């Protein structure tokens, strides 16, 4: 089984490759590091295009050489330069050829350091990829021997959320990692002009959180019945007046991976980032995996087997 890393040909490369290496080590998978270059134009007059193609190829080769240096020798890894009309299509094609299970991408340079930001390629894949997509925060770094130590699942107490927890519990168990179920109670501040004090909205958030905790307990009981369990299982509720505050509140460590589900608004087989998940992804300080609903189902079934 394989994991495809989309390799940017600039300073972002090392973040993507390091993330890929960490995930491959945790899940014990092979790596395919892939960079996509545009295809040549149809043969025509002048042949000036060949020179440009040559330049691109050289750039791609250099990027691949640099990436090679970042992958530890014991990790089975392939390095691919592929030609495709779009980067997202190229990555998906390579992923299909290698029967990959996971697509790993870095953040766009447009975002803040240490936060996940998606550019056009990631945006496209987050709304169409048939396999789970992992996005690293901008400037992600880790030790060569680093592994995923804890998987945090964003749990919305809505339908389908429980399945995601079970699916990721299975993944965490295989990776020898802990599981954390996290809910985010995001309510704006009470407008003081309403004349009802500054805390009226906190009461609403607490009520919501009480429901969420109840659902968290239920899903953790389900996890406890799985044949193979994560090394530890816990839950957390983050409060905040916005998503950033709420996500920050639950605390994050090195080796954390955050998982969010796909929206029911999208097709079953593909990743489709909903509005809520999108906000979670954008404010995540750790790598995020977005799982399509069909893959969630498959993973959950696999977790429940044996």
């Amino acid at each position, binding site marked *: 089984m394989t994991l495809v890393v989309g390799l940017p040909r600039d300073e972002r490369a090392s973040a993507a490759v390091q993330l890929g290496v960490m995930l491959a080590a945790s899940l014990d998978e092979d790596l395919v590091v892939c960079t996509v270059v545009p295809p040549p134009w149809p043969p025509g007059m002048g042949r000036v295009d060949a020179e440009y193609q040559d330049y691109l190829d050289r750039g791609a080769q250099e990027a691949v050489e640099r990436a090679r240096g970042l992958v530890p020798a014991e990790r089975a890894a392939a390095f691919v330069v592929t030609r495709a009309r779009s980067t997202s299509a190229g990555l998906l094609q390579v992923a299909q050829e290698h029967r990959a299970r996971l697509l790993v991408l870095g953040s766009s340079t447009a975002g803040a350091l240490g936060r996940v930001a998606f550019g056009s390629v990631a945006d496209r894949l987050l709304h169409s990829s048939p396999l789970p997509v992992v996005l690293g925060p901008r400037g992600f770094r880790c030790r060569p021997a680093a592994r995923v130590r804890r998987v945090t699942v964003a749990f919305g107490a809505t339908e389908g959320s429980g399945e995601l927890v079970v699916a990721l519990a299975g993944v965490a168990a295989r990776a020898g990692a802990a599981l954390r179920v996290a809910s985010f109670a995001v309510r704006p501040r009470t407008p003081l002009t309403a004349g009802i004090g500054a805390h*009226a909205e906190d009461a609403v958030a607490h009520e919501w959180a009480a429901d969420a905790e109840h659902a968290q307990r239920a899903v953790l009981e389900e996890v406890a019945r799985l044949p193979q369990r994560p090394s530890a299982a816990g839950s957390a509720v983050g409060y905040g007046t916005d998503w950033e505050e709420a996500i920050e509140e639950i605390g994050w460590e090195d080796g954390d991976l955050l998982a969010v589900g796909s929206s029911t608004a999208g097709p079953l087989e593909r990743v489709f980032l909903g509005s809520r998940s999108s906000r979670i992804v954008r404010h995540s300080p750790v790598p995020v995996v977005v799982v399509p609903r069909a893959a969630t189902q498959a993973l959950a079934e696999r977790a429940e087997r044996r």
Partner: protein
Amino acid sequence: MATLLQQAFRRKPVGRAAAETDDDGRLVRSLGLFQLTMIGVGATIGTGIFFVLTEAVPVAGPAVIWSFVIAGVVAGLTAVCYAELASAVPVSGSSYSYAYATLGEVVAMGVAACLLLEYGVSSAAVAVGWSQYLNQLLGNLFGFRIPDALSQSPEGGGVLNLPAVVLVALCALLLIRGASESATVNAIMVVIKVAVLVMFVVIGVTGWNSDNFADFAPFGVTGITGAAGIIFFAYIGLDAVSTAGEEVRNPRRTMPVAILLALLTVTVVYVAVALVAVAAQPQAAFEGQEAGLAAILEQVVGASWPGTVLAAGAVISIFSVTLVTIYGQTRILFAIGRDGMLPRFFQRVNARTSTPVNNTVVVAVAVGLLAGLLPINFLAEMTSIGTLVAFLVVSVGVMVLRRTAPDLPRGFRVPGYPVTPILSIAGCLWIIIDLRAITIAVFAIWVAVVLVWYFTYGIRHSRLRPAATDPHEDAR
């Protein structure tokens, strides 16, 4: 076994109330004098001034100016008392929460009945006023008006005030989706409201005609206080300053100054508007005038544009007032529900939107019905009486607490005790007794209904019930 009386007057332990709402010390005291004053001005202007003259001038004549001053002074006194109570009880919330912590459960339910008027009925009144200005705006811009059948209450010759109902529904929808008014939006709304009112004064003053003051107080003092009762409605919101205490830096000094400044600003604007309005047209012209301020401006200038600008400002700012008022109502019901005095239905929070959807829908339906079917003067008077009684209880609470807990640390103390609370109580009573008999009767019935609810349901489901099983737990 506690007697009924003991049960009815049990108080919510303060520690418990604080633990429920204050989960973190993250809240920093961030408000200075200016922001606090702006909160007061923003919460106050806009609830009444746009349509209250139509109702108040026929009652008092041009002497309505004094009604504004009287209502303002009483509002100021009550706000100062409210500020002490709010600072003495480390609970966050409305006068319901303060009454619960200091005066007992049954009083809190009485206050809750008043708050349903202060918030629920006032949002209906505001929505009706909004529909008048919307109609004015539509008429001026597109030459099209919503027919009376669909924009008047049955008493006013219509079937249903549809725009008011639509406004309420729209606000409910926004609230269900989690909308809220930020400090920035409040600031923008303050600017819009004050700007259109200043425009009204500046343009309207050109139509000054001293002859209109000829019969200054046709109905004497009774007329003036009677109008003050209606006008008190326009001062609702000043208490927002009092409840913001815990976010205020140096509340002991800032609080009274902010209340005073906000009150002064609001009163000056109101009196100026009232003065210009009564000078611009004979008092007989006020009765039944729709979108009053816009109509007066058009008359003075002889063109429609100033009315259009004013109506647009009113439509935008009254919308935000309705949103905040309905919001306040839902959260007050939510608090009552959390105390067990309403069925759990009212405190359910939707998992997806993380807002109390049931609660919001119930409030919206009730407010929508009131706004669609009742005339504005009745709604305004009901709001006034509810607010006045709530404030009266607050002022009594200040005096009770000084007696029962003299050593309680208070972030803010009423200056001139005990004169101030006594004046505040007297002022409220003075205005209340001059309200129409029907208003007082309906109010009494309403409070009775709420108390019957309390003694049949609330008292048995209260979370303060001895050895009560946590209703939280057995519902799950």
